[in-house]
């Protein structure tokens, strides 16, 4: 089967410190991948580097989407090609309602005009599924949203923007059990045979109701172990100690 995202020997640094040290990862359509790892291993860096956040520098290696090297593309072009990232701490942007922002982003990503009526209709369904207060989407983007509302709003954006790959950077952190279930339901709604999900997490809760294809353990800038869903359970019980030793 063809590859959707391929990361080859990726090295990257932030503020002169090397964080990713030769990372390899291949994601095919229809797959759900999970990356787990201790604090500071480079999990969030990976998400940021894939989207070419200028705060990080790729020193070598390749990020290939649908066969095309996207190393040098600006973030918005990568987004248009179909990579979405759910942020750990979504920014608050006053002056534009969440609804108008979603509509605007949708038109930028799809390159097509968005019809308000249909868009509002589709959105309403997602908002209900995500147990969001419908009034939230009339409020300014993330402004005054609780932590949980912001995370749900990220999932809402994922559903609306329909990316090929969604990278969820600790979307479950700081959420209560019910909200994690809601996020998990959002992922299930999004998921189909042609797209893929990369979940970065510390926590097994979000994985419970999802079909997981691969679990990767990221330690010190490299993937040191790949397994199936059972690997996540193992880590939950035993922690990362033995993988850290492997590094040494």
């Amino acid at each position, binding site marked *: 089967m063809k590859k959707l995202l391929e990361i080859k020997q990726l090295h990257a640094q932030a503020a002169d410190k090397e964080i990713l040290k030769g990372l390899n990862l291949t994601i095919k359509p229809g797959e759900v991948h999970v990356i787990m790892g201790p604090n500071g291993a480079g999990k969030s860096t990976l998400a*940021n580097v894939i*989207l070419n*956040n*200028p*705060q990080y520098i790729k020193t070598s290696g390749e990020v290939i989407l649908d066969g095309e090297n996207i190393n040098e593309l*600006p*973030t*918005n072009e*990568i*987004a*248009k090609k179909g990579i*979405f*990232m759910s*942020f750990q701490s*979504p*920014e608050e*942007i*006053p*002056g*534009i309602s969440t609804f108008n*922002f979603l509509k*605007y*982003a949708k038109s*930028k*990503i799809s390159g097509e005009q968005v019809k308000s009526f249909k868009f509002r209709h589709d959105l309403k369904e997602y908002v209900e599924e995500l147990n969001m207060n419908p009034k939230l989407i009339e409020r*300014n983007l993330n402004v005054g949203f609780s932590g949980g509302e912001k995370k749900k709003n990220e999932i809402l*954006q994922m559903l609306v*923007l329909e990316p090929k790959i969604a990278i969820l950077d600790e979307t479950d952190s700081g959420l209560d059990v019910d909200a994690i279930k809601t996020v998990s339901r959002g992922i299930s709604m999004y998921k189909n045979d042609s797209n893929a999900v990369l979940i970065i997490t510390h926590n097994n809760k979000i994985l419970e109701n999802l079909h997981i294809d691969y679990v990767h353990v990221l330690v010190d800038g490299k993937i040191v172990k790949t397994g199936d869903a059972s690997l996540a359970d193992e880590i939950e019980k035993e922690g990362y100690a033995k993988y850290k030793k492997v590094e040494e």
Partner: protein
Amino acid sequence: MAKTKVDDINRNIYDVVDKDNYEFKMQKGLNREIVEEISKRKNEPDWMLDIRLKALEMYNKLELPTWGPDLSELKMDEIATYVKPKANLNNSWDDVPEEIKNTFERLGIPEAERKSLAGVGAQYDSEVVYHSIKQELLDQGVIYTDMETAVREYPEIVKEHFMKCVPINDHKFVALHAAVWSGGSFVYVPKGVKLDVPLQSYFRLNSPESGQFEHTLIIVEEGASLHFIEGCSAPKYNKVNLHAGCVELYVKDNAYLRYSTIENWSKNMMNLNTKKALVGKNAQVDWVTGSFGSKVSMLYPMSILNGEGARTEYTGITFAGAGQDLDTGFKVVHNAPNTSSVVNSRSISKNGGACTYRALVRIAEQAKGSKCSVSCESLMLDGISRSDTIPVNDVETDDVEFSHEAKIGKISDKEIFYLMSRGLSEEDAKAMIVRGFAYPVSKELPVEYAVEMNNLINIELEGSIG
């Protein structure tokens, strides 16, 4: 209020230069003969000429301010203080000469008048060429006319108020204004009359190397209410133009006045304007100000809260680009008990532009139980732009609530990355962030100006991405 302008406004409409096709242009410079000539051409009563001549004397005595932006490029010898356009005052656009009418059409004034205004004044260079007000307001005793007509027809009211709120010795450019003033609007709202639709005066300066010195005098009687909008613009020339207008507002007991300004002068303009309001018991004046243009601005609207329970709010935004030094702010004097003031200021600077928020809060000893809350935030879009906050607070009683909050910041890389990850280009992302920053102010502007401001932000940001 209905939306009164279309979205596709761009900077070009301000920069269209009409031919300098005046009926009379005063020789450049400033002296007694020039002042007498202006007065004579206006057929003024002697008392007005006396004020002009006293003001000229004062102008010659007063020094330039020793603080604030550099004014050395302003040379009065190179400024024509009076330019009479080839048009008389009309109350029908059909009678306004074609070229001048077209200019105001481009600026959207007649359209706005049809859709959402109760009256309009339009000044071109030194004279008002159009003034009109809805009949039903006339029937209620509202007066809205140019200042020259007011001097002629309502001399007692003008004598009692003209240069009384702002004394001619206030500063050098007030004295200059009083000596050579021309045009402007006069508004009188009788007791208890409430206008629910705004009046708007628009000031257009076309003639190069000239000055505009319009005088706006507004009296809102007890329990009356008014929203007044002023707009101003000019095309760009290589030489300096001068704007030294004066606004005097009398807001009587229990009255309300909202004074909105969008200033869009070209970047060769020295904008040295003076605005002041006297506010009576339980009355309120709100200032909403957008300053985008001019090379140098020194503009600090002032509210004097003389009556118990008087209130004022200032909501202002300033946007300075390359070569612009915009020194703006707000002054408030609490002179009576239980008065309140709220200040919300935003400034944006880029490409080496400089924004200064300069403010005065004075709370007199007798103003017990008063409240003052100041918030000013600045955003710098790059490392070469400047932003300063210079507040002066003079509080003479302990029995007040006073808060001052100032923030100076840069545009956040995290916010840009977040928006770009949703498909927005860097320019779109920056514009969205800047609009968001301006939002607390732009939402207070009349709708068509808020749209215009957002468009200006887009235009101003184009090409500013390094």
